[in-house]
């Protein structure tokens, strides 16, 4: 087994644990590269099908290409798609910096969906290497009432034994990609031939390395037009993946505040 085989086997194990232990369960599908890999891994785990709904928490501000992609692959992959809206930015905590405030709309939209469908488990595609605060996450991350992440009081998690609290109002965020790195995601996309929105590939010397809302995501300089070229570029890159995400750079603790409140 090479490293991708091991990552794949571990993710499949995690998805099967979640499916067994958390009901009802749903998977977040942001239409980005990581969540496409996650849907793909679910099809591996469940032999070609995704036996739970996928959720798109729609800020209404995604790129048009992403909405096209969503409609095309919902059909092709036979997904049970749940859509949720986000409240207008005026309803969000005004003490947050502007981009983080915009991103927090998604937190509120997600919370509403979790409550509406009374979800016990939400599968999300975050990775440790994306952002230092995410590096502290558990594979099964219990969220108390109000969806709060209690960073100072996380449960022990080892030997593939995961906490599955059963209290009304709680849910568990499941993170099957936590140990993957950005380059692993791309190498797996290449190996498996996983389709992507073409915003990830260079047009006029720029491409998106990470996809968020149109108004708070910017492209990076790049000439990579194929998956293989992206991999080659990443192997020599020295900037961080989320360099194009405005909310990560507004203030030192903006991202941690977002996450404590339930952001991904």
């Amino acid at each position, binding site marked *: 087994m090479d*490293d991708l085989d091991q990552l794949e086997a571990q993710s499949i194990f995690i998805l*099967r644990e979640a*499916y067994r232990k958390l009901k009802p369960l749903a998977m977040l599908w942001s239409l980005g590269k990581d969540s496409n890999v996650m849907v793909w891994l679910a099809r591996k785990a469940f032999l070609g099908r995704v036996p739970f709904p996928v959720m798109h928490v729609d800020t209404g501000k995604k790129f048009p290409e992403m909405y096209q992609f969503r409609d095309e692959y919902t059909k092709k992959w036979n997904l049970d798609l749940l859509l949720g809206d986000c409240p207008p930015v005026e309803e969000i905590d005004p003490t947050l910096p502007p981009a983080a405030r915009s991103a927090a709309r998604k937190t509120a939209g997600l919370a509403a969906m979790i409550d509406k469908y009374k979800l016990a488990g939400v599968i999300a595609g975050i990775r440790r290497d994306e952002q230092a605060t995410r590096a*502290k996450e558990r594979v099964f991350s219990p969220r108390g009432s109000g969806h709060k992440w209690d960073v100072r009081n996380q449960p022990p998690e080892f030997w593939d034994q995961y906490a599955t609290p059963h209290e009304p109002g709680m849910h568990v965020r499941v993170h099957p990609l936590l140990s993957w790195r950005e380059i692993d995601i791309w190498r797996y996309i290449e190996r498996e031939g996983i389709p992507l929105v073409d915003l990830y590939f260079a047009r006029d010397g720029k491409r998106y390395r990470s996809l968020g809302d149109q108004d708070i995501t910017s492209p990076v300089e790049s000439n990579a037009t*194929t998956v293989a070229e992206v991999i080659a570029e990443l192997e020599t890159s020295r900037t961080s993946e989320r360099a194009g995400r405005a909310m990560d750079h507004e203030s030192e603790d903006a991202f941690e505040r977002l996450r404590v409140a339930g952001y991904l």
Partner: protein
Amino acid sequence: MNTVPTPAPQEAATPIVIVGHVDHGKSTLIGRLLYDTDSLPDGRVAQIIESSKKRGLAVEWSFLLDSLQIERDQGVTVDSTRIPFRLGKRQFVIVDAPGHRQFLRNMITGAADAEAAVLVVDANEGAQEQTRRHAMLLRLIGIRHVIVLMNKVDILDYDQKKIEAAERDITTLLHQLEIEPTVFVPASAREGDNMASRSDKMPWYKGPTLTEALAAVPAPSSRADLPLRLPVQDVYRFDTKRVVVGRIERGRIRVGDEVVIGTHGARARIATIESWHTAPQVAAIAGQSVAVTLEPDVIPDRGDFLFPADHAPLRAARIRTRLFWLRQEPLRVGESFRLRLATAEHQVTVAAIDSVVRLEDLTEHPAAEVPPEGFAEITLAVSETMLFDPFLPGTADGRGVLVDRNQQIVGGAPLIGVAESVAGRNAIHPTGSAVSPWDRARAKGHRGGVFWMTGLPGAGKSTLARGAENRLFARGIDVSVLDGDTLRAGLCSDLGFSDADRRENVRRAAAVARILAESGQVVIVALISPTVADRELARQIVGEGFHEIFIDTPQATCEQRDPKGLYAAARAGRIEGFTGIDAPYEAPANPALRLETAGATSDETAARLATYIGDAIRLDDGARRQQS
């Protein structure tokens, strides 16, 4: 950028945990290491420098890891962090574990899967409470490769005598835990001495730098050669097919293999291995998450495991286990939990607290309760008979967790074995609890150990064993030989050569070797032990101090020597099931020592064996030796 080479398959990353007392410099070490080896994205370095300036500090390497706001403000690591890191072609994941006592559960979360550990010790302060606690935990989770980094030696003026005195104290501490440190690296993480480059301030130090020591960490041992263990994770019914899914923990499966299922013992064949978007599969190995159909279509439960009929796991309703207790309250006899073991869950009650570790000096004592966050050996009574394998370093099963009613993990339990068998052992060693292996080793001037020689009939095992015995005895070492023929003449005279009898023969030899080794002796076992499973059984019975030695003689040479005329008899059909002729010999893939006998006299080879054993049992400067 038109042609891009396809990346070559990569090895999985090796996890390395960094442990040690608070303020001994773990986070600084990691930050410095990443900087020195150019492993940081540009943005990260700029962030750290800015954060440091904002607080009016010089560049603080630990900020890199202590990225949570509360950590920056209080200057301590709250939760463990994992950082990918590359040395040459090899990929590592560095796990930073917090040193604060109340954060033990975060530390275990980070450390539990590590392949090797770096124990960071402030050379001025020496071992502190967390040093002992973390070392104890390394032992319990079975991490055998321990690099000790003696940090802040700049404060000792890089003085050889002072540094070596500090190392001796740490060696004594680790020996109490039966941990043999791989290497000591005197270093200053802040100044960069002996981190990624050799310090010019300690010309007396000839050992590896930290990066060299990390590069020498052995790759994870494969679990694929052990007998099959496939815990059932779930059973799906998709369309008309019933599919059993799970991750193979040990061994391998092939379509057509017969397996036994769980405690009820139903048998079935692996009919197909199901998958989506892969090439058709007919076999799978440990580590893979698989989906299989069974023929006949029996319905296992989650928690049952599939295993081969001839290598069943242990079965018991009372088991002995080590325990690290994660709660802030004490644990008492009579408390009940769920024991989660792989995918199984069993109702268990604490039947006895056999001993508790006193952290001040790491000695074991009888006690009425396990203190908060304490270490102990306990006996669990299970509500029904359960199947299990004792925990073995390098494997992922055989170790469970205790969970409370709220599904919270409250303890880790690397299983020792069936409770009854422990009573038997105590009858042989009534003073076992009072005389530690370390006391015995000091009295004899060497450690005990079992050197298990395997090889074809006629390979030279007994001859070499006797030769080495002579040499070691002449050096005052308490040594004895258990060889196959001698055992069969006495202890095992009731056994024949069926598979079951051969296995029993191995079991008895290993049990006797263990008793002798526990009494401090050096035991050389010379036994064909032809299968990987035989030797794994022996390793499990003996436990720590087991060395597999492969006497590698080509079969043609063995047959030519044929000292007992057995090959000739087997060729003539007078002996059936003779290893090498009509019974297989499975050579060890990764023995502790391989002795090729061709091209050397038996005297020379016996001398090599004696040297290896002498090194392995040595008490004094063993700590400096880099394990091969």
